[in-house]
């Protein structure tokens, strides 16, 4: 079930909230069981066949956690931890690697399994439970009741596509009796975040998706895009992915807040990043936090022990390798196929390259002011351009398609200009330049005008508007906002008449757009993971 579907908004959510707060007024246990039941139903409606797998995974990890708590002998604890990690990652790898069986050759692979094959949210709940076991092993946390544990894993707003939460973020809230008491502020703030999230999905992501799908589908049907088409296609897909993920994260945070629970911020305007690595950490905050805690730091501590002559070289080596491993793994986390691997490797090359360049300039004494606004803009543009190129690997369905689009982005497949420019530029004698219009393959409905019409709203929102969490900064919309965001002085949401009107306007626009069949691309790209 999708958060922005009528069934969820008009039936599931109201009944879920009503039951939760009604039982909450009688006692915590009833409300918690209700929440677990609601979460199971939510998962069942989305992925009927796999509810059993989810429940089995929860029970198994809870039992392993109990053993970890029970035994004090470090040797046994280590074995239990390894068993837990192997089981969780084994299931994850088993499902995700099925696409590998379809690999016929490096240049002709196809991921032919259906989306329903990989259990919904498997990547998210598996990683979350591995973290739980590691934290228990490290004695950062202590075992809780089964109900609290099951809710930590299965709380439906974050179950399918994140955020990836930590045990210590959720369980204290579940144990707080105040969580189960209805509060108007929680409902209003939660619904505001939810409405803004849903509007981003329906108005922005789906519009960008029309352009991206037009171009990428055209390529898979044999079209060879021109320079402009290829860049627009890559840009539109990046916008689609951006709003898809951003909107889902917002809706998850909003729904959770309506239930009185604050989830961590998961997406923080990555296009405003002033560096490549910062850009990555703003995109999927909780995933990078996860990899940072459970992969980069342990790996770094291991690598730093390698005997190298210079300390500075040792640090650079350790940082580079651990960052590289993190980004390649984050690529593979999306799927065990060559395009995701390539995507991860390219991300890693860009990030490590920038890091080493920074270190090199520091070492040679080249004076660059890192906070210079121009440099920040250049870095930001480089990050976005890199993201567009890399995004092609994410969307394309074969290596052949990636090659076609990348070559087109380089201008190798020709540059087509408007026929109106023939008089002024017709003298250029090049076989690469033609004057058949900017979209000679007719891949985008409405050509240039259509592109502008479909992409203008997403562009304005990304580059000129504060994000949802900045709007609601004063009201602590999500965990971590105080640390990650600065106070936005321009526009601040307050629960007054003007904002009630604005939110009603956004809601009505979203409703009207959602009934438009042209924008009915409703699947979230991140559901595949």
């Amino acid at each position, binding site marked *: 079930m999708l958060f922005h579907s009528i069934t969820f908004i008009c039936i599931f959510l109201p009944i879920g909230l009503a039951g939760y707060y009604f039982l909450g007024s009688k006692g915590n246990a009833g409300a918690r069981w209700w929440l677990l039941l609601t979460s199971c139903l939510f998962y069942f409606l989305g992925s009927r066949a796999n509810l059993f797998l989810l429940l089995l995974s929860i029970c198994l990890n809870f039992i392993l956690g109990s053993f970890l708590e029970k035994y004090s002998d470090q040797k046994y604890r280590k074995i239990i931890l390894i068993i837990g990690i192997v089981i969780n990652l084994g299931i994850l790898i088993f499902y995700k690697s099925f696409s590998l069986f379809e690999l016929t050759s490096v240049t002709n692979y196809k991921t032919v399994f259906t989306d329903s094959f990989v259990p919904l949210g498997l990547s998210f709940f598996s990683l979350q439970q591995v973290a739980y076991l590691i934290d228990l092993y490290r004695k950062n946390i202590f075992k809780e009741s089964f109900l609290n544990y099951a809710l930590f894993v299965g709380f439906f707003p974050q179950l399918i596509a994140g955020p990836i939460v930590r045990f210590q973020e959720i369980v204290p809230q579940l144990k707080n009796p105040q969580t189960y008491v209805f509060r108007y502020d929680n409902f*209003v703030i939660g619904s505001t975040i939810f409405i803004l999230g849903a509007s981003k999905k329906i108005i922005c992501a789906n519009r960008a998706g029309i352009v991206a799908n037009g171009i990428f589908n055209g390529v898979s049907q044999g079209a060879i895009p021109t320079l402009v088409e290829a860049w627009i296609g890559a840009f539109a897909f990046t916008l689609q992915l951006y709003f898809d993920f951003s909107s889902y994260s917002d809706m998850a945070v909003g729904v959770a807040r309506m239930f009185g629970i604050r989830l961590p911020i998961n997406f923080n305007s990555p296009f405003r990043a002033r560096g490549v690595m910062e850009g990555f950490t703003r995109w999927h905050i909780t995933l990078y936090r996860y990899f940072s805690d459970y992969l980069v730091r342990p790996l770094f501590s291991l690598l730093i022990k390698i005997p190298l002559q210079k300390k500075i070289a040792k640090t650079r080596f350790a940082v580079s390798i651990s960052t590289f491993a993190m980004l390649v793994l984050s690529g593979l986390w999306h799927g065990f196929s060559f395009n995701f691997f390539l995507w991860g490797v390219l991300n890693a090359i860009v990030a490590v390259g920038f890091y080493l360049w920074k270190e090199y300039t520091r070492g040679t004494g080249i004076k660059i002011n890192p906070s210079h606004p121009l440099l920040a803009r250049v870095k930001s543009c480089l990050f976005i351009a890199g993201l567009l190129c890399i995004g092609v690997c994410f969307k394309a369905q074969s290596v052949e398609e990636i090659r076609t689009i990348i070559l087109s982005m380089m201008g190798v497949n020709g540059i087509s200009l408007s*026929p109106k420019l023939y008089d002024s530029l017709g003298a250029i004698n090049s076989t690469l330049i033609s004057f*058949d219009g900017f979209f*000679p393959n007719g891949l985008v409905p409405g050509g240039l005008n259509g592109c502008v019409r479909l992409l203008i709203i997403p562009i304005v929102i990304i580059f000129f508007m504060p994000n949802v969490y900045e709007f609601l900064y004063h009201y602590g919309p999500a965990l971590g906002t105080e640390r990650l965001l600065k106070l936005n002085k321009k526009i601040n949401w307050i629960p007054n008449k003007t904002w*009630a009107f604005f939110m009603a*306007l956004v809601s009505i626009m979203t409703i009207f757009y959602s009934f438009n069949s042209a924008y009915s691309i409703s699947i979230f790209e991140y559901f595949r993971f």
Partner: protein
Amino acid sequence: MYNYKTYIKNYFLYLLILFILLMSFVLLVDPYCEFNIVSIDRFNKIKTRQYSDKSNWIKATKKIILTNKYETIFLGSSRVLKGLNPDFLPESYKGYNAAYSSANFYDFENFKKEIEKSNIKRIVWGIDFCDGCLDDSVKSHRNNILSGLQLESIISSQTLYDSIVTILDNLFLLKHGILKDNNGFLVTKEKKYENNYAAIFNNVENGFKRKIHRIKRIDYYLTLQREFSFVEWLVRISKEKNMDIYIYISPVHINLLNIIIDGYQFETYKSWVELLSKTIYETDLHQNNKNDNVFELWDFSGYNSITKEAIPTIKNNFPMKWYIDPSHYRETVGNMILEKIFDFGKLEVPLDFGVKLNPNNINRHLELMYLSAEGAQNSVSAL
């Protein structure tokens, strides 16, 4: 201190007011002519957006067929819509152009009931190779459009946009929408094309290449079965109602036939024409009804005086006589088609333009088509 309770009340109040306001606005303007609440001059009288969407076209056409004002109906896609002007027909034929951009037999199946109930005397159907050659996703999307008609025509951003454009069109006499003539014919906005034939030919040819590429991927014969079941229905209903049916293969520019040949799909094309002919004549034989109605299949495609018109280049641009783009012919060509089919004696038509197909001549015709295509390609490469 702000009150959250009041905020919620205000929010729902504004939401309700906005919803009622927008819905009333859409109902009042009625851009798709569905509710007929008011019709005010310079406000909403001319429904310029009535055909802006396929679902609206289906609804409007159903109503038109049922009015029984017309005896001749043209079915087809944009080629028929822009090419066949019912005004060319004699007054007694009372023609209406019910074609629509990218419409095919999937869409025409919606008119079955209306055609059965109506007094239509003849149907002219301009058919194209690979009509309805769609992916399953597109088909299901189309089904969704049709099932959600009612709600979408009241609350959707497109309806709101169309309502605003309808008012602007009425107020300033702009033509943002698809404004069909009273007889359903769409007058082409010539200026757009005349400036860059080379670009527009390239554009359409690229799209056609993809369509041909797609035939290899999809189960084309499944599509054919569906297409021909509609043809079978037409044969049956024409016998029952004594209705004349004229199906013709559109005279697309020869460049498109070359794309079919270059893409090694001529055999598919050939089998399509053969199957079409076989379906018509075999179904016709099986009908016991003794009505002497006409059921003809014409082919205006292939190499002939019209389809091989020279294409301007960007350096040497000149107006094209017969074509708007490789896929769309002009009204003059449409008139020639009607003349050839009905033989009114109003117009002179080149002898090589249009062949009436029957089981006896079809193989020879297709053979000649292939040979002349190959010959033309060889002579071009020899140059």
